[in-house]
């Protein structure tokens, strides 16, 4: 086993080669904000919240998909990063239709938490107010595309953990949206096992249990982490 030594925010860290900066930072006790990353799922670097500065490189790199290398000196909380992160969250808010006050995830939403963390008190970008729909055709769950931030956690958890691969991403750029099956109503997709892992994986109120009212969603991302450690590390206790 080869080891890499590096510095994250002035802390000396030694981790296995191949470890991501995100995992190295976790081991060093350095928090890095994230939205699309979920322990146990393949990292994709979709949300750009975990960008870090590495000395000697003039571009910012996402911590979740960047492997550590020997002697790296990483900064996670520079003024530049803080400004970029805030701008990033503002853009996410401006892109969709996020109305916290009436959302099922109000008070239990990772996007909301991140917005507070980066100090976003308003958006400097005009809201797009896109015309998006809600699909309540599934008997147990619903998806509100207005609240989707395209993190693709649902796509990955359904494919990699449940093995059903109900979800995918359609279109390109700003027109992207999550589809179930072959762009069918969710309730008509035979592949869906109604396991609810996508509800637990969703960082916002986009995927929720039917009948939920304001602030009632209690997503349990820990369950997914438990499934991952149980399967990968054979640890069966929580």
């Amino acid at each position: 086993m080869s080891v890499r030594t590096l510095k994250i925010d002035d802390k000396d860290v030694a981790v296995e080669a191949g470890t991501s900066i995100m995992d190295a930072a976790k081991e060093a006790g350095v928090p890095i904000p994230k939205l699309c990353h979920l322990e146990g799922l393949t990292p994709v670097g979709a949300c750009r919240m975990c960008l870090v500065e590495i000395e000697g490189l003039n571009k910012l790199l996402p911590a979740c998909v960047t492997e550590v290398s020997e002697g790296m000196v990483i900064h996670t909380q520079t003024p530049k990063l803080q400004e970029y992160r805030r701008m990033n969250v503002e853009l996410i808010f401006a892109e969709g239709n996020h109305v916290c006050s009436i959302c099922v995830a109000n008070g239990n939403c990772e996007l909301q938490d991140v917005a507070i963390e980066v100090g976003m008190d308003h958006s400097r970008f005009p809201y797009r107010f896109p015309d998006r729909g809600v699909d309540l055709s599934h008997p147990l769950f619903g998806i509100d595309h207005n609240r989707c931030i395209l993190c693709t956690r649902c796509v990955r958890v359904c494919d990699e953990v449940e093995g059903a691969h109900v979800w995918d991403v359609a279109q390109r750029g700003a027109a992207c949206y999550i589809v179930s099956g072959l762009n069918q109503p969710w309730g008509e997709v035979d592949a869906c096992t109604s396991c609810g892992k996508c509800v637990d994986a969703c960082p916002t109120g986009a995927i929720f249990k039917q009948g939920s009212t304001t602030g009632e969603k209690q997503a349990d991302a820990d369950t997914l982490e438990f499934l991952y450690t149980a399967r990968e590390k054979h640890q069966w206790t929580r």
Partner: protein
Amino acid sequence: MAKTVVIDPVTRIEGHAKISVFLDDAGQVSNAQFHVVEYRGFEKFCEGRPYTEMAGITARICGICPVSHLICSAKTGDKILAVQIPKAADKLRRLMNLGQITQSHALSFFHLSSPDFLLGWDSDPAKRNVFGLIAADPDLARAGIRLRQFGQKVIEILGGRKIHAAWTVPGGVREPLSEEGRAWIIERLPESFDTIRKALDIFKGLINGPMKEEVEVFGEFPSLFMGLVSQDGQWEHYDGHLRFADSNGNVVADGLSEDDYQDFLGEAVENWSYLKFPYYKPMGYPDGIYRVGPLARLNVCDRIGTPQADIELQALRDYAGGVPTSSFLYHYARLVEILACLEHIQLLMDDPDIMSPRVRAHAGVNALEAVGVSEAPRGTLFHHYKVDDNGLVQKVNLIIATGQNNLAMNKTVTQIAKHYIHSEDIPEGFLNRVEAGIRCYDPCLSCSTHAAGQMPLHVQLMAADGELIKEVYR
């Protein structure tokens, strides 16, 4: 030359509006109009949302009376689920509505209207507000503020927060009442009774003395009254059926169901206001003018059903010599209703059902169309939803209490303007009386408009050709 006086915006009301007073060539008032000048569009943008969200969305219509929308929307949701909600949920929703009526009426009386009564119509406008009241009579002001706090705290105890509590849901409520919450309410009730008794004594003194004229001038006219009553004709605020009564105390229509509201309520539109003009359909527009709210509820019910409030209801009827028809007596009715609310809260505190943990029924979409009704502090509120098979809202119609008093408010400002204004030279205190005619109804224009920042009084004197002759700011 004919002229128009514009009071814009109207102050110490909830929402944004203006009043135009039209003067004829001789400087006499020919007409007055109450305009609601903002547009919000809730009925449109709720389309496409899950019906389970409607309580949360429609509560945002208003920060003063969100509970009314929460309750009415949840009742509409109950009908979409086609369930009978648990007994405890029914009683707890009632408890919240009683807290809401108490706090809203206390706000209207003590914070918004009593400065006129206690400091005088013609007193310094800069001090004619709740702060002036605090300076003039700190004990009464404190008692009034604490009475409102009591109502707000009842809402918070049940819903976790005072404003926009996401607690009433289709099928019932989310949380039962806690022991600590019940204990707090019981402990605070006696003080609330004392305050309302004191306010009733003060107001009775006013209308038998210095404010006798206001009773005759502020919206004294015959009209229909509409409100909910219980199956046996008692005062209601949450359930029961609708009743229309006239100014002579005759019941015009009874046993009406909210499901059929379109058969007996019409909504007219005028091009000078964003607020619609509902009317009683069988009598046509505008003859079908009816009033809703505290005075209407007291006029349609046979009795209130609690001892102290029934005595006060009789005193009100005795004062008016029959059916009270002056809108100035809305203030009186509000105080009687607070007393009724406190007595009903006391009864609920002794009811073993309210501590039950079974408060929510779960079901799917079992009806595609539903109409809910409840009594908001300002009057009867209707929510009407149509949903698709999955529960996505296709169509929404909301009939707000304040809208139903629109015809009456216009009639009231005209009556007051005609009485007090006789030339272009109008003292500020007279304009304040015109505004106060609107305040009798405690209109919640936030329910159809935005409340926008500071609201100074702005009066414009306009010539018939639109030329600005005189402008006064307060």
